[in-house]
C-alpha cells in the first residue's frame, strides 16, 4: 500500500474536447499540494477527478485503490461555487458533514459537541441558527470549510478556497486549513494566487492547457522558468528580504 495518490496517464474528455491530457503526478499524503495555472488550465477538472466524480481514462490510485466512484474514501470537497440550499441553517449545513459518521440517523452528542468546536474554530459560533442563504461570501466560505472539518476527512479538496475572501479572511481560512495539515490531513487545492500558494503549499503543480508543466517542492517551482512559461511570461517573481517570494502580473509585458 503506497502512501501516495498516484496519477498515471490521466485524460479527461468532454465530448471531443480534451480537458486533461495525459497527466502523471504523484501527491504524497500529509502534504499540501496547490494546483496553479491560468484560467482554463484544467485545475477544477483535475480536482473533481481526484474526488472520484468525473469519469476519466488512465488511473488515479489513492493508497492503491482507484478513486472513481469509490465511496469508501473520506474526502471532503469545498467547491468554488457551492449550491446554496434554501432555508437550511448553518448548524444543519455543517452537521451534514457528520451525517455519514452518525449513520444517517440523528446526530450523536459527540457530533454536536464536535460541531460546536468547529463553529468556534471557524468563527461561526453564534450564527448557527442563521440561514446559509443569508450568509456573506466570506461567511459562506467558512461554513464550507466548517462542513469539511466536520467530516474529519483524510483528504480535503478545495477549489479556490480564498477567491471570495478579503485579505484578512484569506489568511484566516488558509491558517485553518494549515491546522488540518498538522493533523495529518492531505490537502489539495487550486489557487489562482501563486504568492499565497507559495506561502502555504508543500508541493506545487503547475498546469497549462490540460497538462502538467511542472510539479515539485514549492520553493523549487516558484523560481523555475516553467512557471513563467505557464503564464506566457506575463508574471514576475520577486523575493522579499525575509526570503518570501511574491509573484505579480507584469503590466508591461502585454503581447
Amino acid at each position, binding site marked *: 500500500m503506497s502512501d501516495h495518490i498516484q496519477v498515471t496517464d490521466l485524460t479527461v474528455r468532454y465530448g471531443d474536447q480534451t480537458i486533461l491530457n495525459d497527466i502523471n503526478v504523484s501527491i504524497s499524503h500529509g502534504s499540501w499540494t496547490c494546483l496553479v495555472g491560468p484560467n482554463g488550465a484544467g485545475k477544477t477538472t483535475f480536482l473533481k477527478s481526484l474526488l472520484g466524480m468525473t469519469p476519466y481514462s488512465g488511473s488515479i490510485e489513492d493508497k492503491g485503490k482507484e478513486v472513481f466512484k469509490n465511496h469508501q474514501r*473520506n474526502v471532503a470537497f469545498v467547491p468554488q461555487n457551492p449550491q446554496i440550499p434554501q*432555508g*437550511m441553517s448553518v*448548524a*444543519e449545513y455543517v452537521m*451534514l*458533514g457528520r451525517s455519514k459518521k452518525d449513520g444517517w440517523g440523528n446526530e450523536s452528542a459527540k457530533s454536536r*459537541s464536535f460541531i*460546536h468546536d468547529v463553529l468556534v474554530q471557524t468563527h461561526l459560533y453564534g450564527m448557527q441558527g442563521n440561514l446559509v442563504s443569508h450568509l456573506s461570501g466570506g461567511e459562506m466560505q467558512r461554513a464550507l470549510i466548517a462542513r469539511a472539518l466536520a467530516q474529519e476527512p483524510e483528504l480535503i479538496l478545495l477549489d479556490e478556497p480564498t477567491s471570495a475572501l478579503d485579505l484578512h479572511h484569506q489568511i484566516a481560512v488558509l491558517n485553518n486549513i494549515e491546522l488540518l495539515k498538522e493533523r495529518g490531513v492531505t490537502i489539495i487545492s487550486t489557487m489562482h494566487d501563486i504568492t499565497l500558494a507559495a506561502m502555504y503549499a508543500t508541493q506545487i503543480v503547475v498546469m497549462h492547457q490540460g497538462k502538467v508543466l511542472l510539479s515539485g517542492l514549492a520553493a523549487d517551482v516558484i523560481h523555475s522558468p516553467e512557471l513563467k512559461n505557464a503564464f506566457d511570461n506575463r508574471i514576475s517573481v520577486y523575493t522579499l528580504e525575509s526570503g518570501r517570494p511574491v509573484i505579480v502580473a507584469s503590466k508591461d509585458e502585454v503581447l
Partner: protein
Amino acid sequence: MITQEKSIARIWNWRITASAAFVLLIVAIFAVSLGPINIDFIEVFKTLFHLPGHATGQNQTVILQLRLPRVILGVLVGAALATSGAVYQTVFHNPLADPYLLGAASGAGLGATLALISTHGNSYALLPIFSFIGGVLAVLTSFFISGKFFAEPNTLLLSGIAVGSFATAIQTYLQQRHSAVLRPVYSWILGDLTSASWSVVAWSSVYIAIALFILFSVSKQLDGLMLSDEEAFSLGINPNRLRIMAVGAATLATATAVSASGLIGFVGIVVPHLVRGITRRVTNRSLITIALTGAAFLVLADLGARTLLSPAELPIGVITAFVGAPFFLFVLRNRRKAGS
C-alpha cells in the same frame, strides 16, 4: 458528559413530530364522530380502542365500516401525497414541484378514462388498477425519454411535462368521443374518498407503507441532494442512486394514492411548505412530521367535504384548495417577513 455550553442544540426536536401525531389522532377521532349521524366523541374513542361502553348496532357499523376506513384512507393518501411532494421538491430543487410532476396524474387520468370507457362508465372495479398502471407508465416513460436517468434533472422535469401533456391530449380526445364518461372522469379528477372500504385500505396501505418506509429511511441523505452532486458525493452519498430510489418510492406512493382516491391537488405542495414554515426546518428529517400533517390535513378536508353541504358531498380537491391556498399564502408571507 457534554455540557450545553460545549455543544450545539439538537437539530431535530422530537416534540414537533409528537405534536403532529397528537393533532392527527384528535382530528381522526373527530372525523369519525362527525357526519350525518353525530356520534359522541367518547363513544368513538371507546369503540376504536374496544374499551367497555363501546358503540353497538348502527353506531358500531357507522364507525367501523363506514367512517373508520374512510378516515384511514385519508390518512394514507394525505401522508403519501405530502411526503412525495416534499421529496420531489428536494430532488428537483424546485419548491413548486408536486407529486404529479412527472406525469403521474395525467397518466393515471388516462388510465381511469380507459377503465371507464371499457366498462361503459358503470364499473369502478377496474379504475384503481388502470389509473395505477397509467400513472406508473407515464413516469417510467418520462424517465426513459430523458435518457441517462439523472444526468440532468431538468431534462427529466421537461420530459415529465411533455409526457403529461401527451397523456392529457389522448384523455381529452377519448372523452370527446365517449361523452358518457365525461362526468365520472371529471368527478374522479376532483378526487374523493367515497370508495373507501377495508379492502381499498388494505391494498393501498401495503404500497404506501413500503414507499414511506423507504423515504423515511433515506430522509437525511436527501438533505445532501440540496447541495451540488460533487458535494453530496464527498459527504458519502451516491446522488443518482439516491434520486432514483427517492423518485421511485415517491411515485409508488403517488400512484397508489391517485388510484385509491383520484386526483387530490394541493396537498403535495402546501403541506411540506406549511410544516417547513411553521417549524422553520427545511431538512428532510421533518418528513415524518410532513406525513403526519398531510394525513391530518386530508382527513380534515374530507370531513369538510362530507359535512359542509350534507347530505351532498363536495369534491375534496375543492376543499384542499379552498382552505389550503389562503393558509399557504399566510405562511409564505410570514416566512418572508421572518427570513428578511
